[in-house]
């Protein structure tokens, strides 16, 4: 097991390095940040000064060498626009995204597993059909539209919730609810399918024949075996959230990493782009590791 983790860490480190090299050179191909930071009528002298100030006048290979040397010392460089260390900016934003992702995925896990299991157990019933419809709607609703609709309904019409921002628990309700919908729809479907096939397997038939209670069949025998595909999909969905929920963060004014990354790309804020990519990549790597570990916990065969 330890060896597996070690191997995984090594391959992830190599991919992370590859990512840094790729993003470093690709981002520098996209254009001159001086053109975006300075006003259109800025003089050539101002542009030269800006580039000199940020080391953008050196040949690109020298820039890369400097960047990697700084990185080795744990220095991610300064933001070109904000006159602050890039890593600080990214970590501040990442904390918001992490909270959003954690809260949302915990709620999704509980709700989707519960509804999906019950639907599988009562397959063909009204509840099952309703759950399937819910899942379809959830998986296909565009979050931009849902978010605006939610603001119109709950803030403008009913006046129950603040439109956007942070500060109180009420500010979290709409963003979490909007982010909840899609993974809930997808995972509910996976839970249902996986549980159905588990329920049809010989060991469940045996358990039923022995007179084991339904509750026990669902929650003790089937759930554990049906969880592997569910965890895989949940991992994908959680990774998408960690990468930043750009639309939802933008609409609700959440200062998360998704919006930060998009802004940084549009503004050619190279150091922030790189720092944001490294931080999210690291987070996704850690999450994948946790998923592997949970596989091992659920299925003894994987442990060996």
């Amino acid at each position: 097991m330890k060896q597996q983790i070690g191997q995984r860490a090594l391959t992830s480190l190599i991919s992370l390095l590859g990512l840094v090299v790729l993003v470093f050179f690709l981002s520098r191909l996209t254009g001159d940040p001086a053109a975006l930071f300075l006003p259109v009528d800025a003089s050539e002298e101002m542009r030269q000064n800006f580039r000199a100030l940020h080391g953008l006048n050196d040949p690109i290979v020298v820039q890369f060498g400097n960047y990697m040397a700084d990185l080795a010392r744990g220095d991610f460089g300064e933001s070109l626009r904000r006159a602050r260390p890039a890593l600080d900016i990214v970590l501040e934003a990442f904390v918001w995204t992490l909270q959003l992702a954690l809260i949302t995925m915990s709620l999704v896990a509980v709700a989707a597993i519960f509804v999906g299991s019950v639907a599988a157990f009562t397959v063909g019933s009204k509840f099952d059909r309703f759950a399937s419809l819910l899942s379809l709607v959830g998986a296909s609703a565009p979050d931009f539209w849902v978010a605006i609709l939610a603001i119109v309904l709950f803030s403008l019409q009913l006046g129950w919730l603040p439109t956007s921002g942070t500060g109180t628990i009420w500010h979290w309700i709409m963003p979490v609810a909007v982010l909840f919908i899609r993974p809930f729809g997808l995972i509910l479907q996976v839970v249902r399918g996986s549980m159905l096939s588990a329920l049809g397997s010989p060991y469940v038939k045996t358990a039923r024949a022995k007179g084991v209670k339904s509750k026990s069949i669902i929650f003790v025998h089937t759930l554990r075996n049906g969880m592997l595909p569910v965890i895989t999909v949940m991992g994908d969905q959680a990774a998408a959230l960690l990468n930043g929920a750009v639309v939802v963060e933008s609409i609700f004014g959440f200062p998360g990493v998704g919006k930060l990354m998009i802004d940084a790309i549009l503004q050619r804020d190279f150091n922030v782009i790189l720092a944001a990519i490294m931080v999210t990549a690291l987070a996704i790597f850690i999450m994948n590791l946790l998923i592997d570990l949970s596989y091992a916990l659920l299925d003894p065969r994987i442990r060996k």
Partner: protein
Amino acid sequence: MKRGKYLAATLLAAAAMAGPAMAQDSEVTIVLSEELDLIDPCMATRSNIGRVVLQNISETLTELDVRGDGGVMPRLAESWELVDENTWRFMLRDGVTFSDGTAFDAGDVVHSFERTQSDANSCEISRYYEGIDMQLTAVDDLTLDIRTDPAQPIMPLLMTLLTIVPSETSMEFTRDPIGTGPYQLTEWNVGQSIRLERRDDYWGEASDVSAATYVFRSEPSVRAAMVQTGEAHIAPSISALEATNPATDFSYPNSETTYLRIDQMTAPFGDVRVRQALNMAIDREAFIGTILPDGSIPAVAVVPPTTLGWNGDLTTVDYDPEGARALLAEAKADGVAVDTEFMVVGRIGNFPGATELYEAITAMLTEAGFNAKLQMVEVAEHEQFYSRPYVEGTPYLIGAQHDNSRGDPVFSMYFKYHSEGRQSGVYDERVDALIDQATAATGDEREALWSELFALLHDEIVSDVLLFHMVGFARVSESISFTPTIATNSSLQLSEIGLE
């Protein structure tokens, strides 16, 4: 049902106690379109930074009267006079202190200017003093001489742009702006909000608003909704689509002019008939009230009508596709390659409806016999087409917006129309000479020269396809009194807000 009502009441009560988002008594909340990346006074000409910093935290020696026609008004300078052709003397206000308690004097002005010119930062304000050799001298604590070469007749106007910081301020960008203004920065929650509080020791009249919180929302419908629900008092920019409530929604000229620049050095645009035909091919009226909001004005110059030297005699080119075709045929007969394919380059998201506007224009040009195709590009790519050295290969017309709310064409004309200007497509000695003369002239002569330049560019040279002076929309809560003006695009003085 009862339960639902109970829940609603509980939520409502909780929302009312929700803290910073809900303003109380004399505090206001202002919702801006994007997060502030910097808050340095020397970047205050950037619109959202200006709305927070300019004349709330920082002050300038003079200010431009945008509500009346008072011209340049005193602020930190009480008066000024011309000592000789090249030297202005400013008499500074006594008893002014910065928010850190230090006294304001002429040395601070000298430092503020030097700071904008320093290599240790990339201050935007410096561009307004480019090409001028400026010597600032503190004669005594309250007297400042500015000696320039060449002479600067509009020095008092140029001083509306120099934000004053204490002489202790380092050359690098600061995150703690200190100014002499009526408010001071008390809180900056990065990514979320900025809070300003009123100063007790401000030299001028105390304003009604005791504190202001600025929040950032990129979605225009959310900004509009926030004023409607009472979470904010002013949303300085909402979209035309949202501006449907006459009680709260204002339209105001936002000092932007939309136009297509013609580069006369590329064929077939060297021929004046082709340039005239471009202008005649576009039905400007058709855009107003459809793609663009009512209130947009067909443009005859690259600066808005509030600018010095505005020439009221100039008229918009009438829509005349037949006439355009006839002119093209005439040019073709003389050997001009009017069939040459060219691009109309527009910037994605430049203003609401930008893509649709450029699509329609390209269609109109094609209709009139031009071989035009549309190319929408994002901001960094647009900049490559917009500024020298221009993109070579296919000829193109570039669609762009220019902002001049500063009252004088000097901030526009050199770089837009001088042969050496960074974004000029005009190469004409008469234009160069007029720009040079007008820049150096004063009073009525200056006004007349600018006026003459506008006419020359519009009637004879046909320098651009001028499109529209644009309008912006703001939503203002009924609980305060505030009227947006052309200046709201770059500054928003809290002292102008009245509480009802």
